């Protein structure tokens, strides 16, 4: 596809881009101290240095340099969006690769194949279940490692998970198009896989295609108050939508009014399965209503709540959802939401004082002003979801519940996982080391620009549709993990390694593992079926 952007920026326009990013990263970015510590980098100084040579670079070099600096934050919330040539598009290959097995020795398999892969069709024997061996003639494990170095994610497992995903899906809002025009894939046909004893490796060439996955009508709209309460990985959400459009569900799900973000089905006569694809909804009440309805259709003895690859969305939706599963007897009271804090900087102090931000930021203002004397690098932490809203409905599912996350469960997904653990809602199973570790409320450049009104600080106009997203309020956990940040750390639970059957047979082993946990949790006798000793 090539790495060009097709839009030329002159030297002055490049300085506008860099100055805007310096203003935001130095004055507003919620994780700057942590990122400097964790990665021994100084993105602000890097941007300042880039400013000196920006006019000498080609367009591709410039965007790559900016992207590299921002990617170095390893923060999927904080992204640079290049020129708007391919805004809203995702470059895809006609298949999906996933990994199973232990972290040190993963096996990569094709788990989905696009039924509309093109007029030329797919190579003979290329189907779900084939094992991927090489990627452009590089052993696939190494190829993933190399690619992970260019990915967000604060932990190695998180970067690998993202790298694996972006091997076949690249959201073009946040990264240049793939350098390679095509991908040569080495694979073992399914019938002669390694575990079958064959070493036959075939090769096939796949071209990138560009899709424009739309957003659901139920998603959060820009410039609403809900849009200021987002915690989401926008790139991962674009990939999620691109996959959704291409790979039809093979399972029989219950009908739902929110198919973009929800799915549910019974596993058997005792247990149910709830899939939370995303929290990207404009109306969290409607979201809770629908989940409540679906839970009512599932068997009552236990439910597996699967948030793998959930890129986040509306914070209110994620945090309020917890109450539907929370047994007050276990949680010890209402669900406590995660809290958020602002970096204490001259800019955030100005923003909090601006009369135009009073409703949004006033609650943080006093502690931000006090930080001048206390030296505290952050404001006091406050919830974005009012605690009263986290208990305004109460429990909707009578049985025990287990939640499943992985390293691509991100942002509001992390918040949900944190709330699940910290409020002792139920067991948390983590595929990988922990959830993705996206701990912040994320704003767009437009929202930042709006919030600067009345501060005396303005952002330079950004040319060519260039933009950014930035982590504005850092999330810290409540309850037993009070004060622990989510960023990079994520939420750890009971570790689980995916199996081949999980990838190719509907999460068979994972669900068995989870229902085992539900068994161990015990089902209240009053909701057990009568033939299993229930009392009703």
């Amino acid at each position: 596809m090539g790495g060009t952007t097709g839009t030329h920026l002159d030297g002055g326009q490049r300085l506008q881009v860099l100055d805007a990013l310096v203003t935001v990263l130095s004055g507003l970015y919620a994780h700057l101290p942590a990122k400097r510590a964790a990665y021994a980098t100084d993105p602000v100084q890097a941007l300042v240095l880039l400013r000196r040579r920006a006019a000498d670079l080609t367009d591709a070099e410039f965007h790559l340099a900016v992207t590299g600096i921002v990617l170095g934050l390893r923060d999927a919330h904080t992204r640079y969006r290049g020129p708007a040539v391919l805004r809203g598009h995702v470059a895809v290959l006609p298949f999906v690769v996933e990994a199973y097995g232990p972290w040190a020795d993963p096996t990569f398999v094709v788990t989905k194949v696009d039924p509309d892969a093109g007029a030329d069709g797919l190579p003979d024997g290329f189907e779900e279940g084939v094992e991927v061996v090489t990627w452009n003639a590089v052993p696939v494990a190494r190829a993933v490692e190399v690619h992970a170095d260019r990915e967000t994610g604060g932990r190695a497992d998180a970067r690998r998970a993202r790298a694996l995903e972006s091997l076949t899906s690249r959201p073009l809002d946040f990264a240049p198009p793939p350098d390679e025009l095509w991908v040569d894939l080495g694979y073992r046909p399914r019938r002669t896989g390694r575990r079958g004893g064959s070493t036959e490796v075939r090769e096939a060439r796949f071209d990138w295609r560009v899709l424009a996955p739309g957003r659901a009508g139920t998603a959060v709209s820009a410039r609403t108050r809900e849009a200021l309460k987002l915690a989401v990985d926008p790139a991962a959400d674009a990939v999620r939508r691109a996959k959704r459009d291409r790979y039809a569900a093979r399972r029989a799900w219950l009908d739902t009014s929110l198919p973009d973000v929800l799915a549910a089905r019974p596993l058997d006569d005792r247990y149910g399965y709830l899939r939370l694809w995303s929290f990207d909804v404009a109306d969290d009440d409607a979201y809770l209503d629908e989940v409540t309805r679906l839970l009512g259709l599932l068997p009552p003895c236990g439910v597996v709540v699967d948030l793998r690859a959930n890129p986040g969305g509306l914070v209110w939706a994620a945090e309020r959802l917890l109450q539907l599963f929370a047994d007050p007897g276990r949680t010890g009271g209402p669900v406590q939401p995660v809290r958020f804090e602002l970096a204490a900087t001259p800019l955030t102090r100005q923003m909090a004082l601006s009369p135009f931000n009073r409703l949004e930021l006033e609650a943080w203002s006093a502690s931000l002003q006090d930080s001048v004397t206390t030296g505290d690098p952050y404001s006091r932490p406050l919830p974005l979801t009012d605690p009263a809203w986290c208990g305004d409905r109460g429990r909707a599912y009578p049985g025990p519940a287990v939640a499943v996350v992985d390293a691509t469960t991100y942002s509001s997904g992390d918040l949900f996982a944190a709330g699940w653990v910290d409020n002792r809602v139920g067991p948390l199973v983590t595929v990988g080391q922990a959830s993705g570790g996206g701990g912040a409320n994320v704003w767009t450049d437009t929202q930042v620009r709006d919030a600067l009104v009345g501060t005396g600080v303005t952002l330079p106009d950004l040319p060519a549709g260039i933009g950014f997203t930035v982590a504005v309020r850092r999330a810290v956990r409540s309850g037993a993990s009070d004060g622990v940040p989510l960023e990079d750390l994520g939420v750890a639970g009971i570790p689980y390694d995916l199996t081949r059957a999980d990838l190719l047979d509907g999460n068979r082993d994972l669900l068995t593992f989870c229902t085992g946990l539900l068994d161990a949790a015990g089902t209240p006798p009053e909701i057990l079926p009568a033939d299993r000793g229930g009392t009703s």
Partner: protein
Amino acid sequence: MWGIRGRVVPLAADTAPVRAGSSGAFVGTVWIDGDGTVAAVTRGRRARPAGAHDAQVVDVGSSLVVPGLVDLHNHLAYDTLPLWTEPAQKVPFAHHDSWPRAATYAASTTWPAYAFITAAPQELLAYVETKALVGGTTTIQGSPPMNRPRDGWLVRNVDDESFGTGNRDMVYASVLTATPAALATRANAMRSGSLFVYHCGEGQRGSLVAREYADATAAGCLQSRFVAVHANAVDPVRYADWSHDPGAVAWSPFSNLWLYGQTTDVPALRAAGVTVCLGADWAPSGTKHVLGELKVARIVADHLGWHLTDEDLVRMVTANPGDVLARAWGRQVGRLQAGAVADVVVLHASSSRVDPFRTILRAVEDDVQLVVVDGVPRYATPALADETAMPTPTPVTVGSRAMRVSLTRPDDGTTPLSWDAVVARLEAVRADPRGAITAAQASGAQASGAVSGTASSEPGAEPFLLALDMPTGEGPVGGLPHDLGQVVVPPLQSLVHDADWLASVHGRGFHDGVLDGLGVYYD
């Protein structure tokens, strides 16, 4: 140039021609130059200044020609709302941090005001500034913070006025408590010529907020360009600390009695040389405008046995604030004299022999015949609107009278705006606050899209934004209810002190019946 001929009450700084015991009023003409200033004030019916030989003169007979009234303390964003009380509050509030914690505060004030500033900011300004005009107000403090502050639109906004210079540092204002460091910064700004209007020591005498006055003292704020709003919590003895370079206090007796049951010690202020000015304060705890507040001042002064003449009180809405503002503006309002800003009010008087100050004090909305701001007729009877060639007039019913108001869109100052459209838009927001807020946010145009259909007439211009200036109250982080359907906007309050409003004073608030006396002025 044009002139208004009638019985002029100039309140001019040059008092030499005024005989002792005289009101200083005379039959004469106020001549208004094309640049919005008073060219001259002449005595008698014939005198004309140079250059005015062909100038049109509007003769208002025995009516009083008075400096435009100045309201030195308001919060315009809330001025569509009714009087507020907290049902659970059985004793007067202690201070300004007490009532924002009341259970019904946010829902009664912040939420409905937010609905209007978000979904109909231009119509909101049109409504509340017209309300001020109806009471003869030509200059008002407390305009909502806005991202594109304007020089005079309908009423002169103290906070935003720059007289065409674009200098927005002439006047600073703060409703919320400022830190000592911020006060020190303001002290130096005042030394450089700025005015600082600061809510300072608002509460019951001796309550902890009196410390704000002490902080202001320590910071060096007690200067002639300092306007302390309320200062009723301050021990009157401390007013003497200001006597070396006295500034002003904005006195809002209605609001004080409504919330705290006591008010500022005006005689002590005057004894210290501090200038006392009146402010109507916001609608949830104030009068409709300073014409109403004048009556409250009379009632309260009489109730407390203070010796304050009607002229003393009239000066609190004219010359006193005019002189204070002149310290920052370098321009005079509140007095009718050559070179002053041509802000003029014409009030009905039954004959040329009535006591002018008593007449002004007793005037009600029906007595306001013409209001001129910056030399431009902005509010008038239909006849005077025609005679003065009011620009962009739109009919408005005020009480029982058909009047005219000169309305344009606040964001551009030129596009005509009809009163009916203003009211229709505000009513539409009232009918569906959630939908209106959501739509306004979604459009990214917190401007009066409903009037024009667009957020801005200029490509690339930012939307016109207003902000709230009062405490937001207790509530969830973010200030608003989760369900915006809980935002209820009460009916638009009338522009006048009508029977319903007077009835809402009786038996509510903490004035112990003192404010019930207002009714006699409106019978």
